[in-house]
């Protein structure tokens, strides 16, 4: 299995402010990787580096084996890029924009584009700038499908979209990707959307990488335990298994990779009496917040 994307020892600073240091990750062919992180943790930075719009302080990213700072035209043809906010040349209408892009890609497939456009309530001469956010996202999606790239890089595909359009986007995308063995690298800040789309995740925080694994594995190993402390002064922060701890009076939300038995053993060993101990099932968003914290 080839690595479509490979980033090695990626380090970047904005002035003196560190974004991340020695970030390593890869995306294998056919997988869908979601980059999750709070605002300011480096999602857009990574997207910019991958697209050749930012030179990292040190380290490199390779796409199809080529350094992203000098991608060849041939390689660029194999990459589809969605800019945050579905930014397009909105002075064009859909007819003009299809004509424009088709000139660059030898494998251009107009059919999927027009199929999507038929679902839109727009005239062929309507300028994209006059369309709604959702309609614009469909145009952007249609163009990517028509380009039929091997790798899709999507920067926050859900920004500004209604739930209906978001659902449409994700469903279309996932079906398309799996059917054609496409590789996708995406970011989004709406975690529920990511959950429907991605196979693998990369969670970054201000300190660096917090998790880098498949979604299934992550959801399987990262747990939340809720319980009530008898003694609300008991200090659990020093416990080795604690990833995050939310304490409101004597109600505890514990986030950990460890098993229930290890947690219970610690409580017993330290004479901490608890009641209503239960594992709470989490969605990806809950797990993300649990891992990164509410602040």
């Amino acid at each position, binding site marked *: 299995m080839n690595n479509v994307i490979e980033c090695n020892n990626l380090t970047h600073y904005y002035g003196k402010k560190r974004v991340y240091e020695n970030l390593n990750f890869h995306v294998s062919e056919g997988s869908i990787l979601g980059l999750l992180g709070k605002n300011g943790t480096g999602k857009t930075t990574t997207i910019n580096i991958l697209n050749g719009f930012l030179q990292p302080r040190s380290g490199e990213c390779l796409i199809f084996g080529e350094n992203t700072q000098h991608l060849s035209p041939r390689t660029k043809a194999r990459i589809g890029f969605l*800019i945050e906010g579905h930014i397009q040349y909105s002075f064009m209408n859909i007819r003009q924009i299809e004509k424009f892009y088709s000139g660059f890609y030898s494998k251009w497939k107009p059919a999927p584009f027009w199929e999507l456009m038929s679902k839109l309530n727009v005239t062929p001469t309507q300028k994209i700038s006059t369309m709604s956010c959702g309609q614009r996202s469909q145009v952007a999606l249609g163009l990517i499908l028509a380009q039929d790239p091997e790798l899709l890089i999507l920067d926050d595909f859900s920004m500004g979209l209604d739930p209906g359009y978001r659902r449409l986007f994700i469903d279309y995308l996932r079906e398309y990707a799996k059917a054609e063995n496409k590789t996708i690298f995406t970011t989004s800040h709406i975690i529920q959307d990511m959950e429907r789309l991605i196979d693998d995740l990369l969670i970054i925080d201000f300190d660096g990488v917090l998790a880098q694994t498949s979604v299934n594995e992550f959801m399987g190993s990262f747990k939340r335990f809720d319980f009530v402390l008898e003694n609300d002064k008991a200090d659990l922060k020093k416990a080795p298994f604690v990833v995050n701890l939310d304490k409101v009076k004597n109600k505890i939300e514990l986030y950990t990779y460890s098993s229930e038995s290890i947690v219970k053993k610690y409580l017993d060993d330290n004479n901490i009496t608890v009641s209503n101990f239960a594992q709470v099932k989490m969605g990806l968003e809950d797990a993300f917040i649990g891992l990164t914290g509410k602040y």
Partner: protein
Amino acid sequence: MMWKSVVYKEWLKIRWFLIGYTLLGILSIGYLFLTVKHGFAFTGGKNIWNTFLFLGHQFFSPLKYVPLVGGLTIAIAQYFPETVNKRIKLTFHLPLGENKALLMMHAFGAVSLLLSFLVFFGMFAGFSLVYFPVQMVTDSIISISPWFLAGFASYFLVALIVLEPEWKFRFYYSVVGGFFLTIYFAPAQTAAYGPANSGLFVLTAFLSIALLFSAYRFRKGEM
């Protein structure tokens, strides 16, 4: 044939501005010669010639900033839409060398401007030859040439400035560019620019690839 698509996009951006500008220019030159014709009828041809030859009256002086306006207009029409939301990323992402794409865009704008200018020039020379002998027409052309070169220079400079990602440097480039353009407009008597025109041509040509510099800075992630 990717250049066709590149040109198509540029054409969509500038077509109305180019057509509008060319029409306005044609009207200006037409009006200019209407005033010449009127002058001939009312003041007399010999007096018009005399004031031109010996009293420093340049009948073509209203044309002074016409090419400059053209350069500014086309450059803004072409490059401003690229900077809104950093849309130029879309062009850089195309399967085409980034500099190649930019130079294609730039060449199209410059050629469009050139065609407009050639129309103006042709009209100017044609009408002038009706009223004035060859010497006076050549001297007039020598005098208006720097203004046309300034039109190209302003096109090249505005592209450089608009594509620059950092405001601080946009300011610096504007200051340098603004002062540089004054070189094309030094107070001069008719045909005085003769010795300087070839140098000005070279300097203008130097500016033709200026935009690659700020685009490069953009691609390296300068904010």
